[in-house]
């Protein structure tokens, strides 16, 4: 049963890859076909993963056997099925959304290639998280990188897009090199490419090799996941792609990095030393804080969302890091709780980030701009989009009763387990995650008050915003699915959490099933402190109290609600230019955190007679890109310097080149005869 659905997933994506190319010249046919097959595949993916998650045994589908590298078999164990579920949920909504969006974005160009790549990209994502052979893992990983590269550079005529794509390609390839190293090292040790073999051989890994594998896997996978300081490609590449692809990249693709890390850490390298977890935790804290801080200063809505992905990967990684620390000391229930929190936040982030990117796509669709300083007042022109974007904003800001809060609550609870750690200094560093997470939450809320408030509320700041119209129904449906999921996974968190919990149990020996299962109440096992909360109750009470207050305050007397002008201190009329802008909104925080932002600004005032009557004022502000300048620029400069030195041997003279060959030959001969 599960196999059948899983095969449907693979076949539907394959057909979706081929069929649009057949109708190359007709966008009216190839766009719906591509997304219809993606939709079928996603639906089947959801069913297959739910079946696999609830079923007892792992499911394996073998495609073709190879004598050298082993069979290409895709298997759905707990972790793979969980990631398949994440991918399929987001791609379902995105595939519904994509048709009208692509029709407009593609314009006169053929979208056939894009549709084919879209399906191939999704297929590669599915295969990356399900394949159980290191060789094919790398193949599919590369496929995923390449297809996503082509999706990013769809708009290749724009110079920024092309550059962003190139940077993305270079960074992820460097990352792949590290992944390759760790997987090759593992396969040399295990004597084969199969993941089962890796797992069997992990006990005999020497410590030095283990550390080397961990470091390079961390470097490789966190490049993909966008962990600071390897995040620089992310805020460029994600916004450059068409919005529904950004939703997939930010929501799902970067999660493959986390998938890889969890797989390597808990399946191939256990038992893990505690300092690995500490390293991950510290990187995660830095990522979370810096990600949200840079997001705050961003006024391009898609870049803003991309920086939030850096932040949320940080939050997910906090859970992973804690799980490593706890499991290395043998606190299995605590490790289980942390990994559950990480997995739960992972799927939640996929959902709300997908929703927000689709919302950003809708804004771009109807206004043609991503710059929130040019927007405003969209709530009256696009009411449904606005409501859904608000849900996404609340969810990502960890506000109850939405799903973002549920997983942050779990993360907080897992940090509280630091009580168990014997070493006080380590415990203190772990506890630093509390203020880090809280600061992240507070700044994220600020950022989304800005993003929602400036974009959707008050008066339009430009013609484009004033003329915006609500997007077509399929786009709204796509967003609504994710919006509902945000609420459902929040309110229904006690029902859903046993799934990631069950997935996490497979990594720890002696782990138990989640005790005291109660569909109403999210309750921790008694061994881990008695904390409980019920988002369902909170949501119900919020609804009841709000309704009651509407009714009760409406009861008294016959009072009217009139509309009048906004208070303007007596100026004739409120104009859009008087409103707070996004830059003004975040300025206080820019000043408070100036040590991190290092803001630069230039103000030019042009005036004719008196400085009190300026003709024009131009204001330009920018942040100092610390990582690009301090880390990457230095590295690149060194590389260039070395390359220059190497150029000395390139004289351009053919005789010289022949002499090189001759010299090589002589050296080789000497070497052989020795």
């Amino acid at each position, binding site marked *: 049963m599960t196999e059948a659905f899983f095969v449907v997933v693979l076949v539907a994506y394959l057909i979706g890859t081929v069929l649009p190319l057949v109708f190359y010249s007709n966008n009216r046919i190839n766009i719906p076909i591509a997304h219809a097959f993606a939709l079928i595949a996603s639906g089947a993916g959801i069913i297959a993963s739910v079946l696999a998650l609830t079923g007892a045994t792992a499911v394996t589908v073998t495609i073709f056997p190879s004598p050298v590298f082993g069979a290409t078999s895709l298997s759905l164990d707990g972790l793979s099925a969980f990631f398949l579920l994440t991918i399929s949920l987001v791609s379902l909504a995105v595939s519904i959304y994509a048709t009208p969006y692509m029709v407009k974005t593609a314009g006169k160009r053929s979208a056939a290639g894009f549709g084919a790549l879209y399906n191939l990209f999704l297929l590669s994502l599915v295969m990356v998280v399900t394949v159980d052979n290191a060789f094919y893992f790398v193949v599919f990983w590369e496929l995923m990188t390449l297809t996503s590269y082509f999706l990013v550079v769809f708009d290749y005529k724009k110079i920024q897009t092309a550059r962003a794509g190139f940077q993305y390609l270079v960074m992820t390839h460097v990352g792949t090199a590290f992944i390759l190293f760790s997987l090759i090292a593992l396969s040399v040790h295990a004597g084969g490419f199969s993941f089962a073999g890796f797992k069997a051989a992990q006990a005999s890994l020497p410590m030095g090799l283990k550390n080397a594998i961990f470091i390079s896997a961390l470097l490789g996978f966190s490049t993909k996941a966008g962990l600071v300081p390897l995040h620089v490609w992310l805020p460029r590449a994600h916004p450059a792609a068409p919005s529904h692809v950004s939703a997939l990249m930010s929501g799902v693709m970067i999660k493959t990095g986390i998938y890889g890390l969890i797989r390597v850490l808990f399946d191939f390298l256990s038992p893990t030393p505690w300092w690995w977890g500490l390293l991950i935790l510290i990187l995660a804290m830095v990522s979370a804080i810096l990600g949200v801080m840079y997001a705050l200063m961003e006024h391009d809505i898609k870049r803003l969302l991309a920086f939030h992905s850096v932040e949320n990967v940080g939050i997910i990684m906090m859970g992973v890091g804690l799980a490593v620390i706890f499991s290395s000391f043998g606190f299995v229930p605590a490790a289980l709780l942390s990994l559950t929190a990480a997995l739960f936040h992972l799927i939640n982030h996929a959902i709300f980030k997908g929703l927000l990117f689709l919302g950003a796509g809708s804004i771009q669709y109807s206004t043609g701009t991503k710059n929130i300083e040019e927007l405003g007042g969209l709530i009256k022109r696009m009411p449904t989009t606005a409501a859904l974007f608000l849900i996404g904003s609340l969810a990502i800001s960890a506000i109850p009763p939405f799903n973002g809060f549920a997983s942050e609550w779990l993360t907080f609870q897992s940090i509280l387990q630091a009580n168990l750690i014997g070493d*006080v*200094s380590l415990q*203190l*560093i772990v506890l630093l995650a509390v203020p880090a997470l809280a600061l992240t939450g507070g700044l994220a809320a600020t950022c989304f008050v800005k993003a929602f408030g400036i974009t959707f509320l008050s008066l339009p700041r430009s013609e484009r915003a004033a003329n915006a119209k609500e997007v077509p129904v399929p786009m709204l449906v796509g967003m609504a699915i994710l919006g509902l999921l945000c609420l459902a996974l929040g309110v229904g968190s006690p029902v859903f959490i046993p799934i990631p919990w069950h997935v996490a149990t497979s990594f720890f020996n002696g782990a138990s099933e989640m005790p005291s299962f109660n569909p109403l109440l999210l309750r921790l096992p008694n061994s881990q402190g008695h904390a409980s909360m019920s988002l369902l109750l909170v949501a119900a009470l919020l609804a009841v109290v709000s309704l009651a207050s509407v009714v009760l305050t409406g009861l008294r007397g016959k009072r009217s609600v009139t509309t009048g002008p906004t208070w303007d201190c007596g100026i004739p009329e409120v104009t859009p230019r008087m409103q707070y802008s996004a830059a003004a909104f975040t300025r206080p925080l820019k000043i*408070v955190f*100036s*040590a991190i932002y290092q803001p630069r600004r230039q103000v030019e005032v042009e005036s004719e007679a008196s400085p009190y009557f300026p003709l024009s004022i131009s204001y330009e502000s920018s942040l100092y890109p610390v990582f690009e300048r301090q880390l990457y620029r230095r590295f690149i400069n060194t590389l260039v310097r070395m390359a220059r030195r190497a150029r000395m041997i390139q004289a351009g003279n053919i005789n010289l080149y022949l002499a090189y060959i001759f010299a090589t030959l002589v050296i080789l001969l000497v070497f052989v005869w020795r």
Partner: protein
Amino acid sequence: MISYLVGPQMLNLLGVAILVLALAMLGLRGFNRSLNVYAMHSLLLAIVTAITGYNVANMHVYVAAVATIIIKVVAIPLIMIKLVSTMRVRQESRLLVNAPTSFIIAIGLMMLASHMARLTMPGQSPFETMLTVGIAVSMFGMLLIVLHKDAVIQVIGLLTMENGFFLVGLILTGGMPFFVEVGIFFDILLTSLLLWVYLRRMNFELKSTNTMHLNQLRG
């Protein structure tokens, strides 16, 4: 090692109070207020000294406590306040980084101090606390010197640092030999007098005690 029969709980509380006052100095900019906090800081130190004296039943530790009160609580703050009152210009110091950042650095140093104290004296109730406090206070004093731009605050930083060292010494030895102690007090008095002269001179020449002006002395 001294055994504390009286007031380990009391000592812990005092230690925390000493720490908080040292942290408060990091956030203050006004000279007078900093000096008052320093005086209070020294007073708490004197009380800790007296308690130690009671525990080790040693007369000269009491003397040290009294000397602390006379010199650090009364004399030094008085002459410094007098000096500050002669200055006409803006009586506020500036920090190199903003206050929240300096607080965050201080928290990091505090964690380091507690780690070092645990390595030295693990789990011995009043000693670990007081050692943490002593190390942390001396590092906060150093931080005060590094981060503030004004010479008056820097002098207070130096004195705070000395308070931290005094506390560490007191806790580790239960009162140093009498002559060493007298020497130290004499040193402190002399140092602050010297610095007083220096500050007066600086204020007279530059109309300010901001050390940024000294940058121009570079040849």
